[in-house]
């Protein structure tokens, strides 16, 4: 079974925010909530890079570990999802997540924090696949339609790769070999564990190009 993962190629990201727009549009995400956003690294410094960040669907997800009501679950494909009917909006997951993925919409007149919302890898949630209830709570279930997440499919430079970890690692490795640089994968080691042979490059905090291990280390 495939293990779904994201890779953002910092050499290719042009900060167009197409992924953010695609996600907002596809899932009809409310105002104030950004499941995905583009972050600039070393802003203003020559050689600055941009990456697209959302829930990475970690192999050993810290949000799952800290949730007091156990509303999270992991699908067979390695996608970390949660049940909004169980979530109490406490925000612990927000503190635990290294990527700042959990978002909390403001509800009501006084802006009370609502139930947590995050990237679902376009896999919906624990409602009937493709149902109206699923769409309203979690957004579109593209995986059940045989499609990949909208952010990655919409990325104009194909900087954002999504799909089976084995496949996206292969695509990224081919690029690195062809261009001879840019092997750093931001967030890969944090989300999926170091794959053993990967070592951080000198002067950078990223992780080198992942090898072809589909499970990515942990779990």
């Amino acid at each position, binding site marked *: 079974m495939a293990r779904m993962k994201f890779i953002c190629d910092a050499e290719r990201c042009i900060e167009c925010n197409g992924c953010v727009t695609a996600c907002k549009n596809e899932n009809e995400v409310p105002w104030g909530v950004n499941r995905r956003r583009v972050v600039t690294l070393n802003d203003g410094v020559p050689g600055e890079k941009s990456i697209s960040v959302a829930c990475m669907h970690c192999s050993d997800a810290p949000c799952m570990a800290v949730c007091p009501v156990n509303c999270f679950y992991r699908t067979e494909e390695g996608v970390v999802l949660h*049940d909004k009917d169980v979530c109490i909006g406490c925000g612990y997951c927000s503190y635990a997540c290294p990527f700042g993925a959990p978002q909390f919409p403001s509800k009501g007149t006084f802006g009370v924090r609502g139930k947590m919302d995050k990237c679902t890898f376009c896999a919906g949630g624990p409602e009937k*696949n493709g149902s109206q209830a699923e769409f309203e709570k979690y957004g579109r279930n593209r995986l059940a339609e045989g499609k990949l997440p909208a952010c990655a499919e919409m990325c104009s430079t194909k900087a954002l790769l999504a799909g089976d970890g084995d496949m996206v690692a292969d695509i990224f490795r081919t690029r690195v070999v062809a261009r001879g640089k840019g092997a750093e994968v931001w967030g890969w080691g944090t989300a999926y564990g170091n794959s053993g042979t990967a070592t951080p490059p000198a002067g950078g905090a990223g992780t080198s190009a992942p090898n072809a291990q589909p499970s990515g280390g942990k779990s």
Partner: protein
Amino acid sequence: MKARTLLCAAACAAVLALAGCGEKSQDLGTSAKLDAPPYDGTGVASFTAPGWKAGDANSWTQELRTRGQYGQNEYTRILNTTANK
């Protein structure tokens, strides 16, 4: 006879007491409702990508792999074009 009964009662009490002290499982569970796997499809043909059969996990995996390669890996197309020249 009386001693035997007392012994039996004591044994039963000990078993119950020990069972009461048993540690509960601390496995990380989930309170979430069960979710249907994505390869079951949505049942809405108009939005479903062609090329795979709902309910067949292998065809779904293959479809996503093909889609991912076609949409995200331009090197396969470049290499094919170069090879054809």
